[in-house]
């Protein structure tokens, strides 16, 4: 083979390479439509506000997820009965409730943490014609209000928590869930653990001896029972229903523009269930790490209730999605593939939305074990499940929960004492006794008083402009990357530019090279 032939064959090789490259590039944008099948689930209304948003966002990826917010108990029962592909619940199977043990389903399943949040105490109260938005309550007072011990808002115990408010002489109307509810289970567990005798006395008095943790709130006259988180929050949010207070996920207070009570923690600060305070609170949660336990990944919240961190919200918890691990009945591998992809989405990208909605993003340790569980779903595309690619807002290089680490310390006026912050809480914007900043819906901590150096705007300002955290695929090292969306977008453009450029070059080559080669070769021959 002479030099010319070598040259010609190398040109051929180059063109063949380019041709392949073009076809391959082309192939990657032509996606296939039938990637997912519709899946449906039911359960927790506590988690529903987050689930609804995720369902809406995965539509752009061609995924159709249905969810009925019918309460945790119904979710567990429907999953057990096989009528849904997944259930969502705040509490696991196997607990004894009202004398009956909630049997485990016969179909094999696992729990995956889905979203964290604070069970908030949303209330409706005015004083002298003005809405009270900065109420504070200590744990025993909350328990007494929900067990009929404290019946008036101007009770001395409530007043002791609220030195800055003139409380009205009005009946306390506790609004509880009428349906089987995980929120009720979380709330009653807290009361049964922290205020055992108060709770037991109440249970005994209403004929539910030693009820402990229960999904069905034992009621007595003077209480109002309503169905679903929407029912209880909707009831309290009625202007006329003054004096009402309920337990419901924080997002419902944001949604209805109503305030929530700041709850006294063991560090003697009254705190609001903001995303960061819940994240701090959950640092105290013990996760069942026994992979052989039927309770694997479920939570033990004693450490949350008793957290000594000034920022910790005591009623912080997370809910679970219950997923099948075998194909059975109507649960096919195709459905499993979709459920796994959806789970992967909500554990990572979906958590970005948590804070805006009134939840708290799941921390890295829960996401990590959660993703391991996702791999057990039949039909899961395990190549897509990779913690290093998980865009979860809490991740950091050190493995610490960014949100908890950066959580602002409570203001001095939130410490138990004679001072009381005036800024509104929850979805209520106004301040209660005049004077200071408004519009602090989400954090509610930037009142008029200045806290320590790490509060409010200081921290936030410091992190402005930084993008989400990402982790290196190979090393597993995570770091804050500037403006991830930019990178994605501009990569897209860079790729297009590259195509345009290479096409132009190749076109020029194709037009110019053959005549040159031929002429060159012809001359040689001559």
């Amino acid at each position, binding site marked *: 083979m002479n030099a010319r032939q070598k040259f010609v064959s190398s040109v051929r090789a180059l063109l063949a390479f*380019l041709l392949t490259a073009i076809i391959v590039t082309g192939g990657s944008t032509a996606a296939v439509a039938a990637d997912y099948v519709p899946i449906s689930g039911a359960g927790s209304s506590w988690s529903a506000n987050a689930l609804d948003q995720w369902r809406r966002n995965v539509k752009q990826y061609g995924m159709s997820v249905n969810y009925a917010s019918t309460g945790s108990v119904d979710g567990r029962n429907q999953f057990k009965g096989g009528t849904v592909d997944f259930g969502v619940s705040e509490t696991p199977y196997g607990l004894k409730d009202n004398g009956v043990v909630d049997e485990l389903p016969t179909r094999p399943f696992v729990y995956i943490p889905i979203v964290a949040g604070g069970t908030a105490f949303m209330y409706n109260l005015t004083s002298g014609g003005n809405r009270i938005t900065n109420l504070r309550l200590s744990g025993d007072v909350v328990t007494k209000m929900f067990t009929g011990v404290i019946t008036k808002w101007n009770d001395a115990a409530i007043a002791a928590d609220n030195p800055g408010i003139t409380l009205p002489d009005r009946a306390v109307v506790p609004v509880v869930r009428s349906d089987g509810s995980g929120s009720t289970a979380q709330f009653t567990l807290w009361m049964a653990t922290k205020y055992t005798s108060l709770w037991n006395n109440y249970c005994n008095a209403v004929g539910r001896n030693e009820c402990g943790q229960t999904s069905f709130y034992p009621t007595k006259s003077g209480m*109002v029972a309503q169905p679903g988180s929407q029912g209880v929050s909707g009831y309290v949010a009625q202007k006329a229903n003054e004096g009402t207070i309920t337990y419901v996920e924080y997002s419902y207070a944001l*949604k209805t523009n109503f305030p929530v009570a700041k709850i006294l923690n063991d560090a003697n600060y009254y705190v609001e269930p903001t995303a960061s305070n819940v994240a701090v609170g959950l640092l105290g949660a013990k996760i069942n790490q026994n992979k052989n336990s039927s309770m694997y990944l479920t939570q033990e919240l004693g450490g949350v209730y008793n957290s000594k961190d000034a920022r910790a919200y005591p009623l912080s918890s997370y809910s679970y999605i219950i997923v099948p691990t075998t194909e059975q009945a109507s649960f096919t591998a195709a459905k499993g593939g979709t459920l796994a992809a959806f789970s992967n989405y909500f554990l990572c990208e979906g958590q*970005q939305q948590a804070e805006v909605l009134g939840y708290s993003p799941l921390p890295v340790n829960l996401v990590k074990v959660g993703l391991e569980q996702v791999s057990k779903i039949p039909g899961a595309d395990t190549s897509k499940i990779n913690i290093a690619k998980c865009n979860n807002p809490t991740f950091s290089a050190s493995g610490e929960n960014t949100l908890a680490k950066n959580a602002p310390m409570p203001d001095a006026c939130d410490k138990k004492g004679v001072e009381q912050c005036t800024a509104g809480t929850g979805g209520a914007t106004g301040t209660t006794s005049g004077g200071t900043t408004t519009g602090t819906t989400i954090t509610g901590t930037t009142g008029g008083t200045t806290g320590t150096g790490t509060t409010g705007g200081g921290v936030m300002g410091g992190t402005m*402009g930084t993008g989400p955290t990402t982790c290196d695929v190979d090393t597993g090292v995570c770091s804050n990357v500037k403006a991830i*969306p930019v*990178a994605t977008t501009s*990569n897209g453009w860079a790729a297009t530019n590259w195509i345009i450029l290479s096409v132009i070059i190749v076109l020029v080559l194709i037009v110019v090279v053959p005549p040159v080669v031929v002429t060159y070769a012809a001359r040689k021959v001559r």
Partner: protein
Amino acid sequence: MSERRPPKRTRFLAVLLLTDLGLGVFFGGMAVTSAYAAEGDVTVGVLPTDTPTVEPTTEPAAEPVSRQASRTPRVNSDGSMTIDWLDTVRDNAAPNYSLFENLQVSVSQVQDLSYQAVKVTWNGGVETSAQQLASNFMQIMQCWDDGSGSADPARCQFGAATGANVSLLGSNAMTRSLGFEGEDPIQDYTGKFAIRPPLGEYEYTYSVPFETAPNTLYPDGQTTHDVERFFDATSTNEISGARTTSNGTGEATFEIQTVVEAPHLGCGSPQADGEIRDCWLVVVPRGEFTASGENFLDGVNGRLSGSPLSQSNWDNRFEFPLSFRSVESNCPIGADELRTTGNQLVTPAFSSWQSAMCAKKSVFGFSMIGDAESRRNIVSDTDGAARLAFVDNPLSSIEVGDSTVVYAPAVKSALTIAFNINYFIKGGYPLESKDGQQVTEMTLNPRLVAKLLTQSYKADVAGGERLSYLATNALNLRHDPEFLELNPEFDQFVNGAEPAGLMVPIGNEDVFAQLWDYVKADADAKAFLDGIADDWGMVVNRNYQTLDIDNDETINSFPKADTATFRESDTVPEPGFGTFELRPYVHDLHDGGVRAFRGEPGTKTFWDTGRSPAAFVSSGSQLLGRRFMLTVTDLATAERLGLSTAKLINPSGEAVQANSASIDSAVSEFVESNVVGVKVSTATLAKEESYPLATLTYAAVDVCRSSIGELKSFKGLLSHIANDGQTIGNGEGEIPVGYVPLDDAQVAQTKSAIGKISAEVSNPVCPEHLASESTDFDTTVSPTLPTDNLGTPVTEASAAATGKFPGDPSSALRYSMLSALCFGIPMIAGGRTLIRKAKSL
């Protein structure tokens, strides 16, 4: 090198060369068409006309149907298709022949379909038996097309419906079950139709299995008798039975499902050969005789039995070929999403924009939250908060503080009161001929809306008929003389026909405040809210009078303020059910629409002691052909689901329905807000044609709190919104029917906002951006970034058009490359030989 080659090789080379050149020409052609198509995508300033019209394509529907049709169905000029029963050769000795021979069925749209509703109408039928669906009704289903030219019963989505309607139809009539062997003389009972008995039993059972369309999920297809693996009562779109009126007509709204909603049918998905999967809409008329010729009256319960999929019944079918838009998701899951928030009105539009942007590798996340929450969110200091929000009203001067917020008009729409009501007429009354048909017109005035929103009808309060403060009030809307004056047809309804209230969503939205403003701007309605009785003695529910709504300027939600409870008997424990069991909130406007469409008000007032613990449960959805649903929803949702919307009496006293003209008229009357250039709704509309609940939603961007990277992505989104994002249609990136495109002035305003964002990107002035400039701002900047500013927004728009957001340039380029290669390779390979040959000539 030998000049003489074996002839075989020469021939081979010649064929190769010709094939190659042919391919080259083909690719060249493709390149030109793709380039043309891509250019069409990026045309700036060409906005569609106001009225969305169905454009009939010139080519025939699909391949002609080869089922011995004497006439091939053709697509009408309006995109619909009509088929006569006798278009197909039928057996005139069949017992049902005389019942069907005049039947003519139409489907409102059969081409270019996506996930949407179509209307199925018919005439020339025989009236459905009273009350039940015992005889003479229609069964409607969707089936996938296997290319055989006709629909196959095993490939149809049918037989999953459950619930109260079971009591209306004969045995197996809403199932796939074939009953006993020989029940249908021409049905095959062997092979796939026979189900082996379970162990220990001997009787075979017979049923039509379901076969999935082969696609990526089920590559080889799957056949099963357990259809719930693929579809169930909540997901199926089958209509078990639709009624025919005494004048022989009938209609039904049918939900068309694509591969996304029903992957097992695969409609609209590309197949292995690149063709888009077609489907069928099948209508099976049911007469008075079963497959074996038995009269329905002789059957069990006196109802017509047998599955429509059974061969004899199946042979009577009408089949409409359906062609779909390609449902391609170019957007793989896994990219990081840029957060945005928005209200309920913009959500259906945003879902479409989101998909289009996602395909362009610019991925957005969206949280549907109330306007007020959105406004606080974009200027909040919360890390990771969304910096772009879709809201109707701008931020107040207090909220905005020293933030820099720009506003871009995004979309126009309307809030509606939509309904799904069937005529349910008293015997002997003139409208009896319409019994079971859908009501299409209704007029409401502000006071009627006020009554519906304040639980002032007895039926909207638990135990309302026994409450003294409601004693002088009408039982429900249909019994209200004021309503009957405006809607006299409803006077002929049977007494039992009553709405499950007006369904309203929980939460706050600017447009809910607008609805209250509309009510309060009317003197009669305002007086009613204040406690003044109407002309018939009806007063507002006192629980709402105390809310002082008529003077409350801040109300932006729908209260449910009556706390009365009720129990039927002592077996139900205290306190019984209340408002939230009787008239529960719906999640949002879209949920309200879907519930109205399905006849599911969510009422739970039936005390079920069979549960542990006992609880209030729903007594099921409203029966087919007997629905009476009213909901507050957005126009796009109403249109998608085929719900009719009420005319509202506007301040000029005109009854106006929401449509593009009435929305445009109202928006033209919008007034300046506290932000210059941002117009907001007003209740004092002067024009006769203005619809009172028209909306204009803005995209609000906090420029300085956004990073430079976020601003660039927002720019891309807004450019899409200002261009392709205003086209009405069901395609990716278009806005669904029910929205109204922005006019030129509004588009210019959006482009001006884009200009402001561009200015900040190229010449940052925000302190936040100056501080982080060095790291945020260099490598990622597109080289062609225009350096325009406030003064030259148009430059930006044209920049967006000429290359920043092309439709899809890559396919044109790809084709031209391939074409060039096809010509180029032989030139390289054989150029020398050719030239030498030429010289030797």
